[in-house]
C-alpha cells in the first residue's frame, strides 16, 4: 500500500489529539475538576488550535542538541575562569538578583504548567502546557548551572531558594507567582502565558540577556539565547489561549479583560526591578528602562491590543499611568535599595559621575530635576563617612508587596499611598492599580505573607534586624550586603585583576 503523505497538522492531530475519549465509567468532572469555578465557558475543546505541533521524538532531539551546546559553553567557562571576563564586579549583582528573584519563578512556572497540563479537559491544550512545564524546568536548571560558577567566586548567590522564600524584597516576585498559581487554571494562563509571556517577557529577557552580552557574561547570554526558542513557543501558546477563550463564549470577554487588567498591573510592578537593573546595575548600559518600555511595550503591545479590539478587549486599565511611570520607577527603586543596602542580599552603590550624566541624557524631563540631587547628597554624605542607611521597616503594599516608595506620577515628590478597609482592618497600597486588585478579591489578599508584618509579629526570628538578616535570611553579613565599596567581592575582584 502506498503511504499517503501527511501534512504536519493532520499528522499531529492523528498522533496526539485523538488520544482522549468520552468517559463511560467515571464522571469526567472528577478527573478534571477545576474547569468550571472561574465562570469561563468552554463549549468545544476541539476548536483549540495547536500552537506548535511538536511530537515528543522531535522535542527530545531538538532540545538535546540545544542542551549539548549550552553545557559545552558552561564547561568551557568553568575551565577558563569565565567569571573574570565580566565588565566589573558591580555587574555580578544583576545576576544575583536574577538567581534569587527570577529563577525560582521559572520553577513555579514548571509547577503551574504541570498543574494546568493535568487539568484542562482538552488534550491539545494539555499537551501544550505540559511541554511548557518541562521547558520551564529546563530554564530553572540551566540557570542554576550557569550561576553555579559565579557562586563559587562571589557572595550573594549561596542560598538562593532559602532566600526566595523569606527575604523582604523577594516576596515581590514570589507573591506574583503564588498569586497566579493559586488562581484557577484559566486565570493562570491569562496571567502567565498571555500577560507575562506574550506581552511582557521581552522586557525581562532582552534586558537581562543583552545586559549580559554587553557585560561579558557568556554563561548568562548563552542560557538566555538557548531559552529563546522555548519562549517563542510559550508566546504562541499565550496568544492561542486568549483567542480560544474569547472565541468560545462572549461571556468570557469581561472575565478575561479583568484578568488582563490585573496581571498587566502586577507584571509592570514586578518589572520595576528590571528597570532598576537596566539603569543602575549594568556597568555597560544597553538602553534605558524607558527606551525598553517604549520599544517592547508601547509599540509591540499597542499593535497587539489594536488587534484584540475586535473581540471587545481594550488596553489594560492604568496603561496611561504606566506611561508616566517609565520616567520614574527605576530611579525610585534603586534609591530604595541603596538606602536599604544593609538589608539587601546584593551590593548597592552610587552611580559614577559618567553614569549620572547618562541618566540625565536618557531622562531629560525627570532625572536632573528630581533624582540627581539625591545622588549628589548621597555622595556628599558618603565622602563625610556617613553613607545613608535607613533603618525603619517600610510599609509594604498589600498587593504587590513593594515598599511604598513610588510617588504620585503627576507629583513626583509625594509618595503615593492608597488605603482601603476590609472587615474592620486597614490595608495599604502603592497605587490604585494594586488597591483595585485587592478590592476585587479581598479574601485572597488578606492572606498575603507581608515580610514587614511578619518581622513585627516575631515570625522571622530577631528581635534585631541583623539577627533576622543573618539567621532567618541566611545573609553572610558584611559580605552579601552593604555597599560594593569595601566589600569582599570588590576586594577579590581587584586582586584578580591586579594579577592579570
Amino acid at each position, binding site marked *: *500500500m502506498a*503511504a*499517503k503523505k501527511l501534512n504536519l497538522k493532520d499528522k499531529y492531530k*492523528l*498522533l*496526539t489529539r485523538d*488520544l482522549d*475519549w468520552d468517559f*463511560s*465509567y*467515571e464522571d469526567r468532572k*472528577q*478527573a478534571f*475538576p477545576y474547569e468550571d469555578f472561574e465562570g469561563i465557558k468552554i463549549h468545544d475543546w476541539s476548536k483549540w488550535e495547536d500552537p506548535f505541533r511538536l*511530537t515528543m*521524538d522531535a522535542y*527530545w*532531539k531538538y*532540545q*538535546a*542538541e540545544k542542551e549539548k551546546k549550552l553545557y559545552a559553553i558552561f564547561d568551557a567557562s568553568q575551565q577558563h*575562569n569565565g567569571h*573574570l571576563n565580566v565588565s566589573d564586579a558591580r555587574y555580578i549583582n544583576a545576576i544575583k538578583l536574577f538567581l534569587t528573584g527570577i529563577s*525560582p519563578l521559572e*520553577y*513555579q512556572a*514548571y*509547577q503551574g504548567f*504541570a*498543574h494546568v*497540563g*493535568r487539568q484542562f479537559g482538552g488534550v491539545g491544550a494539555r*499537551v501544550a502546557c*505540559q*511541554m511548557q*512545564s*518541562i521547558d520551564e524546568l*529546563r530554564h530553572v*536548571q*540551566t540557570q*542554576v*548551572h550557569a550561576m553555579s560558577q559565579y557562586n*563559587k*567566586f562571589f557572595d550573594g*548567590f549561596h542560598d*538562593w531558594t*532559602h532566600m526566595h*522564600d523569606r527575604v523582604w524584597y523577594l*516576596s515581590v516576585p*514570589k507573591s506574583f507567582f*503564588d*498569586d497566579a*498559581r*493559586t*488562581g*484557577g487554571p484559566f486565570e493562570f494562563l491569562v496571567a502567565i502565558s498571555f500577560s507575562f509571556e506574550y506581552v511582557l517577557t521581552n522586557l525581562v529577557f532582552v534586558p537581562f540577556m543583552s545586559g549580559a552580552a554587553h557585560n561579558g557574561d557568556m554563561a548568562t547570554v548563552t542560557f538566555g539565547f538557548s531559552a529563546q526558542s522555548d519562549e517563542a513557543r510559550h508566546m504562541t501558546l499565550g496568544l492561542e489561549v486568549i483567542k480560544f477563550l474569547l472565541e468560545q463564549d462572549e461571556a468570557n470577554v469581561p472575565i478575561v479583560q479583568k484578568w488582563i487588567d490585573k496581571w498587566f498591573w502586577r507584571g509592570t510592578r514586578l518589572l520595576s526591578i528590571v528597570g532598576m537593573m537596566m539603569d543602575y546595575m549594568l556597568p555597560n548600559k544597553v538602553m534605558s528602562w524607558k527606551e525598553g518600555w517604549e520599544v517592547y511595550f508601547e509599540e509591540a503591545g499597542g499593535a497587539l491590543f489594536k488587534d484584540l479590539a475586535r473581540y471587545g478587549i481594550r488596553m489594560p486599565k492604568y496603561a496611561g499611568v504606566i506611561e508616566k511611570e517609565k520616567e520614574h520607577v527605576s530611579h525610585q527603586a534603586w534609591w530604595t535599595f541603596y538606602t536599604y543596602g544593609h538589608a539587601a542580599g546584593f551590593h548597592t552603590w552610587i552611580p559614577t559621575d559618567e553614569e549620572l550624566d547618562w541618566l540625565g541624557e536618557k531622562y531629560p524631563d525627570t532625572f536632573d530635576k528630581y533624582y540627581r540631587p539625591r545622588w549628589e547628597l548621597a555622595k556628599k554624605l558618603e565622602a563625610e563617612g556617613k553613607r545613608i542607611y535607613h533603618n525603619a521597616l517600610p510599609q509594604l503594599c498589600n498587593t504587590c508587596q513593594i515598599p511604598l516608595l513610588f510617588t504620585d506620577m503627576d507629583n513626583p515628590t509625594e509618595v503615593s499611598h492608597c488605603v482601603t478597609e476590609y472587615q474592620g482592618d486597614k490595608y495599604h497600597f502603592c497605587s490604585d492599580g494594586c488597591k483595585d486588585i485587592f478590592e476585587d478579591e479581598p479574601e485572597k*489578599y488578606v*492572606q498575603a505573607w507581608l515580610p514587614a508584618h511578619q518581622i513585627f509579629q516575631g515570625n522571622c526570628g530577631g528581635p534585631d534586624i541583623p539577627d533576622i538578616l543573618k539567621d532567618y535570611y541566611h545573609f553572610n553579613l558584611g559580605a552579601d550586603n552593604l555597599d560594593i565599596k569595601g566589600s569582599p567581592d570588590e576586594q577579590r575582584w581587584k586582586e*584578580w585583576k591586579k*594579577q592579570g
Partner: protein
Amino acid sequence: MTIEIKTATIEPIRSTFANLQRRFGDKPASRYQEATYDVQAETNFHYRPLWQPDRLLNDKRRTAVVMEDWYSLKDPRQFYYGSYVQQRARMQEQAENNYAFFEKRDLARHLSDDARNSLIRHLVPLRHVEHTANLNNVYGSAYGYGTAVTQAMLFDGMDRLGIAQYLSRIGLILDGNTGESLSAAKQSWMQDSCWQGMRAMCEKSLTVEDWFETFVLQDLVIDTLMQELFYVRFDQWLSEHGGQDVGMLTEFMRDWYKDTSRWVDAVLKEAVSESAANQQLIQGWFGNWRGRVVEALAPVVADMNIDDAALDIALQTLDKRAAKVGL
C-alpha cells in the same frame, strides 16, 4: 576573549550552594544535585489555592505517605532536564532508525492477517492507556512534593506521551497514513467488550486523589503487567505468527521500561523502608489495585489468544518486583 590571568591563583570561595553544603558538606556538587535539591519553595506561601483551599500551594499532605525528607526519593539515573533529554534523544534516534528501516523495506507487507488484525485490536489501543499514564505522571509532578520526585514524574509523563505517539505511528504504518487503523483501534477501545475493563480502570485511575497512590497504581501495577503482557508475551506471539519484525517498532518501549523501572523501584523502596506506616499504606494500595488491574486485563489477554499462562506469569513478575521493593 583572552584570559591573561594565571588560573592557579584564582581560588573559589566555596564549592557549591549552601543548601548542598548543609546536606553533603562543602564539596563540589554534581549537576543533578544543584538542579534538584531544595529547588521547590518550602514555606511562606502567600495565598491558599482557590482550587483547593484546604491545602497550601506546595503541600506534603497531598499524599498520606510521610517522608522525613522528600529529597531522599532521588533518581538513580540522576536525570535533570539536560541529562534526561540527551538520554531520550539517543533512544529516539535508535527508534527513528528502526521505524525508517521498517518503512523503507515495507515490512508491513509481510505481516500475516492475524498479526495485522491483532496489532490493531490489541496493541494500538494501548495509546489510550499511555495517554492515561501521561496524565497520571503529570499528576504526581503537579501535586507531589520535592523536586527529586516531581521532576522524574514529569519526565515519565512526557515519555508516555512519546510512547502514545510511537504506538500511533505503528497504526499509521499499518494503514498507510490514512488513520483508519487508529479509528478502528479507538473503536475497539470504546466498544469491544474485551477492552472495557481496562478502559474503566484508566478512567478510575484519573480520579484517584492521592498522588502516591496514583503512582503505585500506574507506574508499578499497570506498567509492570502491561510491559510483560504486551511487550514480552504478545511480542513472542507476534514472532510466532508472522509478525516478527514488529519487535523493531516496540524496542523503544522495552528500553524505556528498563530505564524507568530503576527509578520507580528506587522511589518505592525508599518510601516503603522509611516507616512501617508507609509500608502498610503502600502495601494496601498495591494489594487493592493488583487484583483490580488483573481483572481489568484478563478479557484482553483472553482475546489476544496468547499463552494461557501469560497472565499468571505477568502476575508473578509483578509480585517479584513488588517483593524487591519491600511489598
